[in-house]
């Protein structure tokens, strides 16, 4: 690999007592002497030697031949260590191509579907690997590795590597594998690090026009084509402004890749000149607009997050209201919110019983070759059948009893 050294010393991540499952790396280039590696690690007796070998292999692969390398490790997993080392090497100006790709782990290769349930999606800060390791066991419908608001600008480059390696390493246990990219050009650069690594869905922040979605779509298609990857990558634009809300329909129908439309209420309320309240009247119109735009475009309407992690009852009320407005899901910022969201989105007993009667009537009509579905004396329209089917599928997915 070619070396264009622009600086002689670079570090990645941070050091300190509070660091967990992560490591700090500093590389000082030298003219000779090979690799002088100083590793201190909390897991010395268990993984000290294998970690040194890993780092040496990586440095050799990335073209670093003479350097002093200092690592303070607080129990980082191998995918984190290699991401931090690579970040420091990149910061030294090395052209490392695709970088040091860890082998894909078990449980990282499953696919997603356009119309899968998206009741809950758990946001995780992209530069904090410790949250990602066990995210799947909490069983959200989706896990978002965030590169945008939760990552400070100076860490954007290393967060990409953590997210890339997490996608290649962590089994998210069936959750849809999502990444929220940055806005604008930085977001397009993110795609190179994300799209080739079995991401299922990209969240695009602060969308105010269909064009923004099309640009991401085009670049995504290009990368998939270049790499000869056949899997589908879907998009979920986030409306976070008055303009975005007004253009919700054209955003939701911008491209085929869009499967859901969501709203970010912190930024939206700021944009319309007010503050977010628990009652949420200030965003009633925008949320309704998102629901209508999404439904009109044939995609899923997904609500924002509920920020007060300690207020379970408030969350439950919020979800029930979201559901009554027509949303199919919402975001969460803490794993303990997931079960509450799933429970609240579960069909109510009466709703489920009615849906089952409608589905049975529909199947009966199909069997008898009837064009019209009727239940008792009432005629049932196709959209009602579709909704009932969805309710029954949801109940089955949640393991609700048939009684």
């Amino acid at each position, binding site marked *: 690999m070619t070396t264009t050294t622009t600086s002689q010393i670079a570090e990645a991540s941070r050091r300190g007592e509070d660091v*967990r*499952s992560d490591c700090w790396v500093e590389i000082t280039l030298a003219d000779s002497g090979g690799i002088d590696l100083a590793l201190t690690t*909390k*897991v*010395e*007796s*268990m*993984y*000290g*030697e*294998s*970690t040194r070998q*890993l780092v040496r292999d990586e440095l050799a692969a990335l073209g670093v031949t003479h350097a002093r390398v200092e690592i303070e490790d*607080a*129990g*980082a*997993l*191998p995918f984190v260590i290699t991401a931090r080392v690579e970040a420091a090497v990149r910061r030294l100006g090395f052209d490392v191509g695709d970088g040091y790709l860890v082998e894909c*782990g*078990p449980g990282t290769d499953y696919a997603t579907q356009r119309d899968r349930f998206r009741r809950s999606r758990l946001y995780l800060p992209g530069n904090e690997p410790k949250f990602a*390791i*066990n995210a799947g*066991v*909490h069983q959200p419908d989706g896990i978002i590795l965030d590169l945008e608001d939760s990552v400070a600008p100076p860490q954007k480059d290393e967060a990409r590597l953590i997210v890339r390696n997490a996608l290649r*390493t*962590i*089994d998210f246990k069936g959750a849809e594998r999502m990444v929220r990219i940055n806005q604008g050009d930085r977001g397009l650069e993110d795609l190179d690090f994300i799209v080739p690594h079995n991401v299922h869905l990209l969240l695009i922040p602060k969308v105010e026009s269909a064009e923004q979605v099309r640009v991401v779509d085009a670049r995504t298609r290009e990368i998939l084509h270049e790499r000869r990857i056949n899997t589908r990558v879907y998009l979920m634009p986030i409306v976070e402004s008055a303009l975005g809300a007004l253009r919700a329909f054209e955003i939701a129908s911008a491209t085929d890749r869009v499967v859901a439309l969501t709203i970010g209420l912190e930024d939206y309320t700021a944009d319309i000149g007010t503050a977010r309240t628990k009652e949420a009247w200030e965003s009633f119109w925008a949320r309704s607009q998102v629901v209508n735009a999404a439904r009109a475009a044939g995609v899923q309407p997904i609500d924002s997050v509920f920020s007060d992690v300690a207020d379970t009852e408030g969350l439950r009320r919020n979800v029930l209201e979201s559901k009554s407005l027509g949303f199919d899901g919402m975001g969460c910022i*803490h*794993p*303990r919110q997931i079960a509450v969201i799933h429970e609240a989105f579960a069909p109510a007993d009466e709703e489920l019983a009615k849906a089952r009667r409608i589905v049975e009537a529909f199947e009966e009509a199909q069997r008898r070759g009837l064009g019209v579905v009727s239940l008792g004396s009432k005629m049932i329209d196709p959209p009602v059948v579709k909704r009932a089917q969805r309710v029954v599928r949801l109940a089955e997915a949640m*393991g609700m009893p048939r009684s």
Partner: protein
Amino acid sequence: MSTKVLDMGIELLENAAGRLVPAEVNGKPATPFQGVRKYKPTGNKTAPPVRSCADYPADGNKVVTGLKTALVNAGLRDGMTISTHHHFRNGDMVGNAIFDAAAAMGVKDLMWFPSASFPCNAPIVDHLDNGVVHHIEGSMNGSLGDYCSRGKMRGMGVLRSHGGRWQAVQDGEVHIDVAVIAAPTADPFGNANGVTGPSACGLLGFALVDSIYADHVIVVTDNLVDFPCLPWQIQGNNVDQVVAMDSIGDPSKIVSGTTQLTKSPDRLLIAEMAAKFVRDAGIMRDGFSFQAGAGGTALGFAIFLREMMKKAGVKARFIRGGSTKYLVEMLEEGLTDYILDGQTFDLDGVRSMRDNPGHQDTSPFTSYNFHGKGCFASMLDATVLGATEVDVDFNANVVTHSDGRLLHGIGGWQNCLAGKCVILPIPSVRDRIPVIVDRVTTLCGPGELVDVVVTERGIAINPWRTDLLEAAKGSDLPIRPIQDIKAEVEALCGGPPAAPKLGEKIVAAVKWVDGTVIDCVRQTGG
């Protein structure tokens, strides 16, 4: 059965668990572990010397001035054994004061026999260095554990369970010369309790055996009341002297205002899965019993189980604590008839023990002692315990970390393994340290007594427990072979961990509940 190997001059024997253990501990012969419920000693219990009322003040006033005076009166001399209890946890001020006084007296080579030590006891390291303390038989945490691990202690550490400590004293394995019992309230006769006073800690059950069997018993209090001090958890008839001090503990570190539930979503998930298991396996039913401590996950378990009990309309007969506000609320809500309490962790626990007849204080004799006519640990329907490591045969370690360092005591852990369903809710990985291993570094609990391992990645049921496997069949919990969970974690961590590099020197012996040696702890580097 036993093979003999020479190791640094100490004869080693292979015990029934396949571990090499010393044939001799601190100069006394030791019996290797023979298997669960196998070793049955004969003979009589030990007894303290006969005393006469003629030698004690008829007015009942045994108060002397100062701890040092009391130790001088007790005849403290080189090589003796001093015992203390740990009901004051990290707020204890008496343990260190005893050895400061002993140092001032010029006494050397003492054996400290605490029911447990805490980080606040770190200054004892100085007394180990200056020769006042020869060695410690009792749990060693923090800097004491580190000192012992590095092979700096002159004698061998001996780790016993709470029940094993009672057993060792009553069987005459450990002779206590002087017991010093810190008591939140006491009268001049020596009656004492833990339910009142500025240093209230709830009960004094860990000190009961010391009060009965020690040659000489000193009660130390910062709340001296007129006779009679009621309830008399410690009976003055066993007490030689009473010392009043300004302060014996830091109340804020003895009990917390309120025990806090863990905020870790992973630990909460594990606790919830453990509670669901108890529900789904049919263990949660009217009249059942369970044990749960105040550790983050155990506390979470009790809280989740409480909600499930309420929903199902189920009531327990008794709960074994470690009591906390949450257990007290269950008692007050009528979700259990009784709390049988081994130690109180917060102020609600102390209040309830003082005021509620359904909240019973216990001692290791009633709850844990294996050399008695039964103990109630074996009657518990569900028992929730921690562990630093568990292996594919369900053997568990609770005293050392995977790198071999001695960091925890056994507490009531080994005794609780007697429960009908023993559940270890533990994370499968701690900062790249896999918790499920091929072979535990230190064996503390035989796998045949560990029934269920609950991790965030799945629940493993001991294959021996076909009844539990059957009972849990209808549950939607992720029940998996323990090897599967181990493999998944190792894939994440970069392969199985290398075995720790341990020295030859044996720094501590781990006793089983019957006094036999189940394993030993080796020196770790530097």
